[in-house]
């Protein structure tokens, strides 16, 4: 039944006939076309759909449209100059059209992927308008109901505070969209470099205005809807029954897609040799949530078909629930190519580990367990496909358009050039959108039906079906001599790669290289296995297994330092990899190994915070307070780009006959800021202002292949390609003018003007130049610069020796925590992060990556645990909220990488790696309990404290005995010893 409902949206009257219980969010997005309001969960858990109803913020996904009858609804589209524009006019395109709050978001870098931004703006707006300047706590309360997975919230809080101050005449941020020294379009010859400037995101206005088109933002009326029916079983055989009755009952059903309908190869996967995952299961499912068929039809029909309406006969089989079950002698083999369910093993061996341990004065051991972690990007997987003659075009949320193109071609049995991938705006990726999601299903349906088809996954579906961070079981042991130098490191990690390979091989190969941490160790044996189970596939997630390994190696460093009576920071510094060091794979680091500089930058913070925590603890003991503070440290290194594999990027930079400059970048900006960084680099390489560079991004018909947005590679690899493209174009312009390299170039009005220092301008009439061919057939450049870069690596031999990466990022963080001893709750009070990024191309974005990495590291450390079938929503699966994020001090270390563009490396993944080790070290410092199973949830922390206190009271009864802190890991007798840790709190009170 429908009814007429009248209300106002952004001041304009709306009168529509609608299903009264239709969610307001759907009415706004689908019926009124106001897609600035985003839907992340449809359950009130994420707040992305926050709008204001009669000024009060509300989740539009939880409001029956009938309830807003007579009300004023305000959405992001009503902000800024939009409020004064009439109906049907264009959305804001200029900085000046934005509201003060939107401008503040843009200037501070508060929007990364932008999917939460409209909700954040709506949640914060009331405070900005309010009578009093808000406190930070009030800002947090106001936006506490909106989740952000990118920013770590700090810059959002800053933006709200800045906007609130500005409306009260207080100090405002830098004027203009660029917000930094690179902002002004300076006169000829005085242009400031773009690299190093705090340039606002080049794609930022559309994100804060809510006009960026994400995967689910196309108008649904133009498409058939597709919904997958998924397995409720972790392992089962199944048979699809007679579908005729279903078709008769639901005439709007255009197609029921099954494995038999896949035109090409019903197998996909990251590695050419490891394509093991079916687009639709063929008779057997290997994990809960695996797609078995897809329903295609008009949206109302598809929404009306329950899974139970579809005739599927299930024969559940006993699943391999974990790695132990999968490696049991009698375990069924899930894939013939993986005997014993071991997909792949990794190994790095160097020197004599036994001798090294023999020679050690102190030996530390640890066992670490980690669980599935969900990417929890606020934008669930979504996209569409349409057939255009003998080609198929996909509009989809992805991190890797070129890999998608090749995979879809295989599934449809087409040539890659018959497939076009147009990336949508991406509402968060973090590795999770490197695998196919909706692609094979919408592509196949659109291909076969010759009608446009779209699919939007629900949150539970996204969580059940998408890849996860690998659970791991790690054992590690290391020794150090009396001088505090590491002598040997031994490591084995098993990683649950789930039902299909996904990026499991990458994890198995990357982890052994990094297993010992950023330290020079003469003897190493590091081995890994990726093991198949009937869990969801584990794939790529910010760090590819390195964050799990870091929990082990950093606990070991703490322990060895404590045993030797050395300070934990100084011990790390003594062993730090430096320029000239030889890594575990035998690679000599030639330059840009800035860990020592990071640790030195942290030193004063380390000393001051530890003193403050000790003083606080003394007061707490005296006052009978059952809380303790502690400070911990974590260090990391991370190879930039693919491991020992081809890793190329090609970027084009064109000038058309009008003098307009366009960067053709195949590198997808998933919120991390790749587009902005590439524009900055290309602009400086060419010698023009970045504001003059337009961008074409990601479309496989219009850009060359710049690889995937993963492995922290876009700044380094695509950045180099952008630099080379800029230099190529600059050389062409200078050659036309017969000018030397010191000349300045200005482009515009159909001319290139080249001026040598002290010389007269040489004008080139661009309209007289013939067009040149570019990847984008629709473009008509008259000059085209092309840059190609593939970092120099070598394959690893059987002992893992070789040059797996061209360069490495380094970093270290310290965490200060407060632990409630009775409740086991941990609050992170502050973080200090020092990262060697080579060169900070855009400091605001580097800080944004660090903040966001810390947020995800904090989640990994304290709260995130995905349990298949149990935590498939964002209220049982917890990610940090604004209230969980402490102030963060960023210390940017720039030890330039000679092979990097302007010296830059990467920071996307590195920022996450040291966070959990630092937090776990801080919990240990505060309580004496070493948590070795993450997340360190309150019950685990409390349990560890309980055991530690019991062990302490037993030990106290033995004269001279120090308390041991291995209580949380029975058998791990070499976890840090209490007596040697000067910062450990007295728990006797």
């Amino acid at each position, binding site marked *: 039944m429908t009814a007429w409902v009248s209300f106002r949206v952004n001041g304009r009257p709306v009168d529509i006939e609608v299903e009264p219980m239709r969610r307001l969010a759907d009415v706004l997005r689908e019926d009124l076309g106001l897609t600035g309001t985003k839907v992340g969960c449809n359950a009130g858990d994420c707040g992305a759909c926050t709008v204001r109803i009669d000024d009060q913020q509300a989740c539009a996904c939880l409001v029956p449209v009938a309830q807003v009858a007579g009300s004023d609804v305000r959405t992001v589209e009503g902000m800024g100059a939009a409020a004064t524009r009439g109906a049907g006019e264009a959305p804001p395109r200029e900085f000046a059209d934005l509201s003060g709050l939107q401008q503040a978001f843009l200037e501070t870098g508060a929007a990364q992927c932008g999917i939460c931004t409209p909700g954040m703006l709506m949640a914060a707006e009331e405070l900005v308008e309010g009578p009093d300047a808000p406190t930070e706590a009030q800002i947090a309360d106001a936006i506490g109901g909106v989740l952000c997975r990118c920013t770590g919230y700090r810059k959002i809080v800053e933006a709200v505070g800045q906007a609130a101050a500005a409306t009260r005449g207080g100090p405002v941020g830098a004027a203009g969209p660029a917000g930094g020294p690179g902002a002004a379009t300076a006169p000829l010859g005085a242009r400031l470099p773009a690299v190093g400037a705090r340039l606002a995101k080049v794609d930022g206005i559309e994100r804060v205005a809510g006009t960026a088109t994400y995967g689910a933002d196309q108008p649904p009326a133009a498409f058939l809807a597709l919904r997958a029916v998924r397995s409720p079983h972790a392992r089962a055989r199944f048979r699809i029954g007679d579908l005729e009755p279903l078709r008769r009952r639901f005439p709007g059903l255009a197609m029921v897609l099954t494995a038999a309908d896949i035109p090409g190869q019903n197998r996909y996967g990251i590695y050419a040799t490891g394509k093991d995952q079916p687009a639709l299961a063929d008779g057997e499912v290997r994990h809960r949530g695996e797609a078995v068929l897809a329903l295609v039809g008009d949206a109302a029909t598809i929404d009306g078909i329950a899974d139970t309406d579809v005739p599927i006969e299930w024969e559940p089989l006993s699943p391999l629930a974990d790695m132990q079950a999968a490696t049991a002698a009698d375990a069924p083999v899930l894939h013939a190519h993986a005997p014993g369910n071991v997909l792949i093993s990794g190994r790095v061996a160097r020197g004599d580990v036994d001798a090294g341990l023999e020679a050690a004065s102190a030996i530390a051991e640890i066992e670490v367990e980690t669980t599935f972690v969900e990417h929890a990007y606020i934008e669930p997987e979504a996209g569409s496909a349409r057939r255009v003659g003998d080609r198929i075009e996909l509009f989809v949320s992805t991190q890797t358009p070129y890999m998608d193109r090749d995979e879809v071609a295989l599934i449809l049995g087409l040539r890659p050039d018959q497939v076009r991938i147009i990336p949508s705006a991406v509402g968060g990726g973090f590795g999770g959108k490197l695998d196919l999601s909706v692609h094979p299903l919408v592509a196949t349906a659109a291909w076969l039906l010759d009608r446009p088809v779209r699919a939007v996954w629900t949150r539970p579906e996204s969580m059940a079906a998408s890849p996860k961070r690998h659970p791991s079981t790690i054992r590690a042991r290391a020794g150090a001599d009396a001088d505090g130098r590491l002598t040997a490191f031994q490591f084995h990690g098993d990683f649950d790669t789930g039902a299909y390979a996904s990026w499991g091989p990458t994890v198995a190969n990357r982890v052994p290289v990094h297993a010992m941490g950023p330290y020079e160790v003469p003897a190493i044996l590091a081995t890994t296995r990726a093991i198949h189970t009937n869990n969801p596939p584990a794939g790529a997630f910010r760090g590819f297994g390195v964050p799990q390994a870091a929990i082990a190696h950093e606990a070991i460093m703490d322990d060895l330092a404590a045993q030797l009576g050395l300070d934990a920071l100084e011990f790390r510094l003594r062993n730090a990899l430096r320029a000239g060091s030889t890594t575990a794979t035998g690679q000599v680091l030639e330059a840009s190994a800035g860990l020592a500089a990071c640790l030195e930058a942290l030193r004063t913070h380390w000393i001051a915070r530890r003193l403050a925590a000790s003083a606080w603890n003394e007061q707490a003991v005296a006052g009978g307070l059952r809380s303790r503070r502690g400070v911990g440290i974590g260090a990391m290194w991370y190879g930039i780009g693919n491991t020992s594999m081809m890793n190329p990027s090609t970027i084009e930079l064109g000038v058309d006959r009008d003098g307009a400059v366009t960067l053709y970048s195949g590198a997808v900006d998933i919120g991390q800021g790749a587009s902005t960084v590439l524009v900055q680099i290309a602009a400086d390489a060419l010698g023009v202002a970045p504001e003059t560079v337009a961008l074409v991004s990601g479309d496989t018909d219009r850009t060359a292949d710049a690889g995937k947005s993963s492995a922290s590679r876009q700044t380094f690899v695509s950045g180099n390609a952008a630099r080379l493209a800029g230099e190529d174009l600059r050389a062409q312009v200078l050659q036309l003018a017969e000018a030397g390299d010191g000349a300045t170039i200005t482009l515009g009005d159909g001319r290139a003007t080249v001026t040598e220092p002290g010389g007269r301008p040489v004008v080139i009439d661009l309209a007289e130049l013939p067009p040149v061919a570019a990847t984008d057939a629709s473009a008509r450049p008259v000059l085209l610069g092309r840059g190609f870069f593939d970092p120099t690596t070598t394959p690893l031999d059987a002992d893992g020796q070789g040059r797996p990466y061209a360069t490495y990022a380094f970093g270290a963080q310290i965490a200060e925590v407060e632990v409630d001893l009775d*409740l086991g709750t941990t609050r992170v009070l502050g973080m200090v992060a020092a990262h060697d990024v080579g060169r900070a191309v855009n400091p605001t974005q580097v800080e944004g990556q660090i903040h966001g990495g810390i947020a995800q590291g904090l989640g990994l450390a304290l709260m995130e645990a995905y349990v298949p079938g149990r935590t498939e929503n964002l209220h049982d699966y917890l990610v940090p909220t604004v209230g969980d994020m402490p102030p963060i001090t960023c210390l940017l270390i720039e030890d330039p990488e000679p092979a990097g563009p302007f010296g830059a490396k990467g920071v996307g993944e590195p920022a996450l790696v040291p966070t959990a080790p630092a937090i776990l070290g801080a919990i240990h410092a505060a309580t004496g309990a070493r948590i070795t199973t993450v997340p360190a949830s309150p019950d685990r922390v409390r349990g560890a404290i309980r055991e530690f206190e019991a062990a302490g009271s037993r030990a106290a009864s033995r004269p001279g005995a120090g308390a041991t802190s291995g209580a949380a890991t029975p058998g791990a007798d070499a976890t840090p010893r209490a007596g040697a840790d000067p910062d450990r709190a007295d728990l006797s009170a």
Partner: protein
Amino acid sequence: MGSYLRPATLAEAIEALARAADDGRPGVIVAGATDHYPARVGRVTDDDVIDVTGIAGLRAIEPADGGWRIPALATWTDVATADLPPLFDGLRRAARTIGGRQIQNRATVVGNLVNASPAADGTPNLLALDAEVVLASVRGERRVPVAAFVTGNRTTVRAADEIVTGLFIPALDSSVRSTFLKLGSRAYLVISIAMVAAVVAVDATRRVTHARVAVGACSPVARRLWDLEAALVGQPAAPGVGATVRPEHLAGLSPIDDVRGTGTYRLEGAEALVRRALEELAA
């Protein structure tokens, strides 16, 4: 496809409920809808909805009959912003821990109770407030103590033709104080691992005259700790009062192991929270 009705009067609502019950298709009552939609993500829906948000006179929290009335449409934000005595401090604190502001602005106190989640933050508070649930139907009105209203995980004594029109909370003397403590794994948007609501009144010598302590998320239905309450009466309300709490006072709880925590931990946490709540009220 189900039906939808948004009555303007209570009489209209209860008549619709009665008809639906007679037809064997009980009406689904919707107010803030914040529990309604999340339970239906990705599901085919066929509810006959009776949306009660159009009924006048069910919003304002007001003094009534020697106590206070929280009508069916009062939201958590209404509780947080209403001018209420210290008796309601615990409930007000709960009001700001239920979801984000977006939820608090729409979700109702009554809906939180009727949804009957074992982890409902409102319920232990309403138990500690000795609240009565007012139900109406074409058969008339009845009042049920909160302790008798919720019968289990997601079950209540509400009949298919009944609607909860509000809650009645009896006043206590002016010495009364109350609090609410919640244990969760993150700062906002968190479902309680355990929670405690406490109401304590004292006499002129600051000895406890009334103590009501309820624990949530540690049993299918939140429970009062009657033995503890009895032990507290007559004790001085002074620092150290938390020591009155003994493990056997929590013996009636039956916490489960789940993704939020183990049963052992829940019990331990609940005991710590009870002590802290009492210390806070005695300070």
